[in-house]
């Protein structure tokens, strides 16, 4: 049909459907915003457990659909982003009013409303679970807009949680997913004035588009993680952590280490330790061969995202030991034209040797000049002075110390908020500088009493503005004269004399009107 009627381009069919989803989400969010904390917890737990049940199966499906990563590691992330998130926040309350009698202030949590969640192909199911959990904990309606490479598995993931949530009492339509994503559809969703916030995890272009949309947006920038090992570090432990982190899900988390910066005094020992952990340190022509495979001219070839070290070595014609988990590529200087200093979402780790910790900090800054500002960095050191110097000089908003950065900065192995969305703050042109967590999806209405004490704040502790829904939301629209229909005032009984009298009057007056 489009071929025959090519003169006026039809809007792609998915676009109007997408707008209908926003409208439905708006209704759902209005209902959800009145729920009480007990019901919210019941819903969040049900969704989390549903996510856990399919964590392994969707881990496998994600690798099959995208070709990225390691199914077993994806399962770990899927569990972390379903029941893991639930366990982290089960005792938090983003629903009930918070009283501050000493300050004469009461905070009433108000959800954003309709959340558009852009999710990446690299961490598809985990990010879907993560954002849904955040939305449920804060009573927001969410529309998942997955990367096209991962649309099937993301749809399944969203449906699994949606069904469980609605069965536990969540409003119909509070979790929706775009099954056939397209650029026009994503644009239509992001620019729709009914959207309350966009949470964008993905490529820079997508994130910038979210900020340009005219809607409030929480976008995150790309990473390019420097990891410094100074002379005070426990070298064996550092090597162990770095290799494990770099190998995790084949480096697909944006928090994976990109450039290893090692102080000269520790370099030889670290290299040996890395080899013991399964790193293959490239040398001579091997380095150029790997660069030739990984980089397509001036950018990272996304065909290698989440591929294994052995696959990359093989493509470069390099024989590596069977137990090789990562490739280490030494290079002399962190400069923009050095491709190994750029972000690499695959288990190839750049390495530079620096004469001192101070020069290492300079190198880390240079890494972040290329990309990744505001994101994360890691340091392996026992020296608080160096760690403070590093953290205060390098433009990142989290520095993971003596832990693998993949799970360290993501909050899985540190006390940072566990997240699939790293706020890159002002350094990284984002509105949020923390790991994304539930509190970012609510605002507070603040009841404020005068500070000079002329009007004392009464006791609000017994007041609960929210309630448990009476049944399914929305209720099925049964006819008002059927059993079970809500009624306040019963319509008059048909046998009622008055009614008969009225009917007679009606007939008379009708006659008058019609004829007169």
């Amino acid at each position, binding site marked *: 049909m489009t071929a*025959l*009627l090519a*003169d*006026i381009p*039809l*809007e792609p069919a998915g676009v*109007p*459907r997408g707008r*209908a*989803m926003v*409208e*439905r989400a*708006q*209704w*759902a969010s*209005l*209902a959800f915003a009145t729920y009480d904390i007990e019901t919210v917890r019941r819903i969040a737990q049900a969704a989390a457990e549903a996510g856990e049940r399919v964590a392994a199966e969707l881990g496998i499906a994600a690798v099959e659909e995208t070709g990225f990563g390691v199914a077993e590691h994806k399962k770990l992330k899927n569990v972390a982003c379903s029941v893991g998130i639930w366990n982290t926040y089960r005792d938090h309350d983003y629903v009930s009013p918070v009283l501050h009698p000493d300050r004469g202030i009461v905070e009433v949590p108000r959800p954003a409303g309709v959340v558009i969640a852009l999710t990446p192909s690299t961490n598809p199911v985990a990010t879907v679970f993560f954002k849904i959990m955040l939305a449920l904990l804060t009573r927001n309606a969410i529309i998942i807009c997955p990367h096209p490479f991962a649309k099937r598995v993301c749809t399944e993931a969203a449906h699994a949680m949606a069904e469980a949530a609605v069965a536990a009492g969540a409003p*119909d*339509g509070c979790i929706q997913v775009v099954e056939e994503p397209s650029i026009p559809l994503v644009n239509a969703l992001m620019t729709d004035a009914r959207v309350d916030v966009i949470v964008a995890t993905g490529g820079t272009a997508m994130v910038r588009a979210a900020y340009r949309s005219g809607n409030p947006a929480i976008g995150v920038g790309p990473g390019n993680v420097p990891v410094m090992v100074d002379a005070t570090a426990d070298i064996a432990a550092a090597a162990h952590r770095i290799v494990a982190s770099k190998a995790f899900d084949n480096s697909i988390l944006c928090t994976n280490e990109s450039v290893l910066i090692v102080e000269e005094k520790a370099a030889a020992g670290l290299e040996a330790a890395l080899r013991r952990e399964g790193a293959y340190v490239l040398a001579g022509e091997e380095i150029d061969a790997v660069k030739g495979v990984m980089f397509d001219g001036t950018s990272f070839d996304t065909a290698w995202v989440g591929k294994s070290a052995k696959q990359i070595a093989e493509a470069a014609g390099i024989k590596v030991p069977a137990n090789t988990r990562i490739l280490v590529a030494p290079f002399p200087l962190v400069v923009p034209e050095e491709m190994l200093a750029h972000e690499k979402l695959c288990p190839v780790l750049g390495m530079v040797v620096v004469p001192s910790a101070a020069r290492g900090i300079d190198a880390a800054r240079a890494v972040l000049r290329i990309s990744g500002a505001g994101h994360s960095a890691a340091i392996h050191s026992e020296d608080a002075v160096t760690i403070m110097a590093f953290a205060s000089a390098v433009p990142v908003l989290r520095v993971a110390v003596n832990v693998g950065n993949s799970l360290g900065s993501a909050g899985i192995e540190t006390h940072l908020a566990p997240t699939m969305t790293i706020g890159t703050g002002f350094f990284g042109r984002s509105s949020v500088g923390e790991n994304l967590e539930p509190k970012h999806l609510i605002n507070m209405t603040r009841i404020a009493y005068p500070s000079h004490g002329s009007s004392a704040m009464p006791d609000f502790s017994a007041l609960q503005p929210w309630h448990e829904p009476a049944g399914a939301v*929305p*209720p*099925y*629209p*049964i*006819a*008002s*004269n*059927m*059993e079970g*229909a*809500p*009624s*306040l*005032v*019963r*319509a*008059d009984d048909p046998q009622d004399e008055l009614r008969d009298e*009225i009917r007679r*009057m*009606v007939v008379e*007056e*009708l006659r008058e*009107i*019609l004829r007169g």
Partner: protein
Amino acid sequence: MGIDLVRFFGMLVHVTDTDSADYDYGVFSFASKAEVLDKAKEYWNPGKTQFWIDSGVPLVIDRREEYYLWDMSGKRLIDLHLNGGTYNLGHRNPEVVQALTVAMQHFDMGNHHFPALARTALAEALVTSAPAGLSKVIYGSGGGEAIDIALKTARHATQKRKIVSIAKAYHGHTGLAVGTGDDRFSKLFLADQPEEFPHVPFNDLNAMEEALRGRDVAAVIMETIPATYGFPLPDPGYLHAVKKLCQEFDALYIADEVQTGLMRTGELWGIAKEGIQPDILVTGKGISGGMYPIACVLVRDEHAGWLTEDGFGHISTFGGAELGCIAAIKALEICSRPETRSMVHYIADRVGTGLRAIQAEYPDWFVGIRQNGVILGLEFHHPQGAKYVMRQLYENGVWAIFSTLDPRVLQFKPGILLKPEVVDEVLDRTEVAIGRAYREAMGGRS
């Protein structure tokens, strides 16, 4: 608001604009609203024009968009009349407009003699969406013609003439359809045929059985919820019992779904929500999104014999016009979306809850709410109660119409795509209007 006020508004517009034609619509223009009203009486329909002026609703619809109408004066109204569901999807629904605009680069009405692209495509879409068993589609240019087709089909299939309908029913004003409705409209044109068109009271099974017992009835025709009668709801089990009586006495059951179809009850077809498989289903009004007239009759193969015996048996040049079919394919698709169904349930709940809250304020005046989805009849404790409320709603920016055949009852018909904030606005305006109408009806204007 009387005619003088209308003239006053017309003058206001006139003096603030220097062009001689203040209302220029391209192919025609008027100087003022008063001129339109005068000429409407002179050249068009004096009775109707005067009726609305006298009713305090001197509306001449100008701009239209979403669920909003603008009178020529610039006054905005939220449309809860929807012209009987014609604007179920809002006015000039952008998706329907786009589908039609694109189609007009290629299609026109088509030639009714031939098999046609859009007619075939719509027929398939309708059959796929319809209650089980309905398998053929016949087209008319409007609801009345579609009812005539349904009645003719029933007569052909049963070789019987009588058609039983509900007293005070409305199924259109064409040749046969007019016989199923109130005498007012048939006697006026000497078209009443009581012997062939017996009427029985609604919700009266004994009367229905009495009418069918002679086995000389071709069909019973019913709106699933009678609109012009103020949407009295069928008693629980009533429609099922009528369907059973039809089977027992060899009459067909024709479901007039013009106002109850297209998701208005929260399911695509009201009769399917009742769990009934009708022998014939008629849809019109909203089916083509208010953009191009078309109406459709869905029948079972076993009753569609005339389509084979003489495919030219019912000829209608405009029936099934292809542009209408294209609008209808799009409208049906929008109505059928899971998102739309969900929204209708939300709208029905919010409207119902809001109206019950208003009812609690005026229990002696606002005495009943008949609701099935977004089909509502609001009952007032005064023989002309709905006219008071209609007038006050109009003053307050809402257009909803009283029930012609029971003016105690206001037809209150939110669109199926109504936004939450508009629902809230409607409820705010309705609360005020109902209060004012109460004071007005009880004596002394508010």
